[in-house]
């Protein structure tokens, strides 16, 4: 796994740049990660998604689907597409320091 420096912090990432260590993530890093994918400022909705995803991951061992974020986290899918445009599942995982949603293969 490559090690890279984001916002002055050394972190482990996979080949696509997703953080691989849950505990290496912090709020400053989230802002850096967001700006890497063209999100200049994290607003209240972004933080609501990030907070939900982080705590849900700890409980479930996998990143929540968009449907779960809507049903359990209470953030409608339409909103997710507005605040993480085009590829919300991938982008919200990236900013939250979690693995992207994946199949078994």
């Amino acid at each position, binding site marked *: 796994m490559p090690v890279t420096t984001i916002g002055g912090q050394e972190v482990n990432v*996979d*080949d696509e740049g997703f953080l691989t260590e849950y505990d290496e993530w912090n709020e400053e890093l989230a802002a850096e990660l967001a700006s890497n994918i063209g999100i200049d400022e994290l607003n209240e909705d972004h933080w609501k998604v990030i907070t939900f995803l982080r705590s849900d991951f700890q409980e*479930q*061992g*996998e990143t929540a*689907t*968009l*449907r*779960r974020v809507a*049903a*359990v986290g209470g953030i409608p*899918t*339409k909103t997710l*597409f507005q605040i993480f*445009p*085009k*590829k*919300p*599942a*991938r982008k919200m995982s990236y900013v939250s320091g979690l693995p*992207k*949603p*994946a*199949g*078994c*293969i």
Partner: protein
Amino acid sequence: MKRLLILGAGTAGTMVAANLRPRLDNDEWKITMIDQEPTHYYQPGFLFIPFGIYTPSDVVKPKADFVPAGVEYIEAEIDLIEPAENRVVLADGTRVEYDYLVIATGTSIRPDETPGLEGPEYGKTIHDFYTLEGAKALAEALRFWEGGKLVLNIIEMPIKCPVAPLEFIFLADAYFQDKGLRDKVELTYVTPLDGAFTKPIAAKHLGNLLEDKNINLEPDFYLERVDADEKKLVSYDEREIDYDLLITIPLNMGSDVVARSGLGNEMNYVPVDNKNFLSKKYDNVFAIGDAADLPTSKAGSVAHFAVEVFTENFVRHIEGLPMLEEFDGHANCFIESGHGKGLLIDFNYDTEPLPGKYPLPGIGPFTLLRETEMNHWGKMMFKWTYWNMLLRGKPLPLPHEMLMAGKIDEGV
């Protein structure tokens, strides 16, 4: 007399009964299994029915044939689980008390959860192959189809047998070639994930398969609605995909009984400890197979390995001993890739599918992550194994724990 009650006589429930009956004293333990459906389906076989490779008789047997000796079987609809009272209420009002409960009620497709999917076109220009009825209707549709745009879409993960959609599109490619129709058929694979292969090593080895077979890929497509009149899929980011024939993998959800009983998550799956399947709420309730909210594939293979772990743990748990065995999320799956070839993958919670060899005493080794004829035969042989070994609780020479022997760890 104590009672172990198993809800669901499908793959997982039947294996639990078959494995536990010989391990529990007949004078001390009654085992009861409840299911509302009289028919046991060999669900991996549904995939082959649309292409005429299997007929319905290959995938159907009476559930009663698989009730192990010494196990009581009740065919009835379940109304409610009352875990605080240690009992289950049947639709006719009968109460069935238990000491321990195993929920093995599986998962099923819910086309009604997606706007526009279920309607007069379902079974005509919109099909599924996750039910016997769906697979049969699709077989008829494909027989008479003269070509056009065939689109396969996955609504949302998790789904039962997550490789089945890929297998379907590979088999469709081969089927239309054999019919001399391939140049008249456009095949498109539509997924909410960011590719057909999302694990780095599998993507590296198999990433070209779709292109090689001239199958279009539409990734990151999160379906908002189906316009069945205009025959198009519309995503949340307003992309549209036209089809002539839509093969859909509808949203999969656990049983409504689980939801009604307050035992499920938002998808009606039962939250359990993913190492031993014990409910997070009740110390005498387990959920196993597709009904559990495990972070691994919903597949018979997972249920099989899980039941082995569960059996050992259960006989300890009822004695008040700690459950020592820990499930690692092990799964292995043959993937049909068309023209008499197949792939094999073997993985668990932590290890993604790797290349190399999968040892199997007396028969193997099979080749991992590569198309071979032997993998195809492995898949075809599996039907016999399922009916005659797996459901009977007979041991297979497959360790429940995933082994690294034979695998090449490429360490991406």
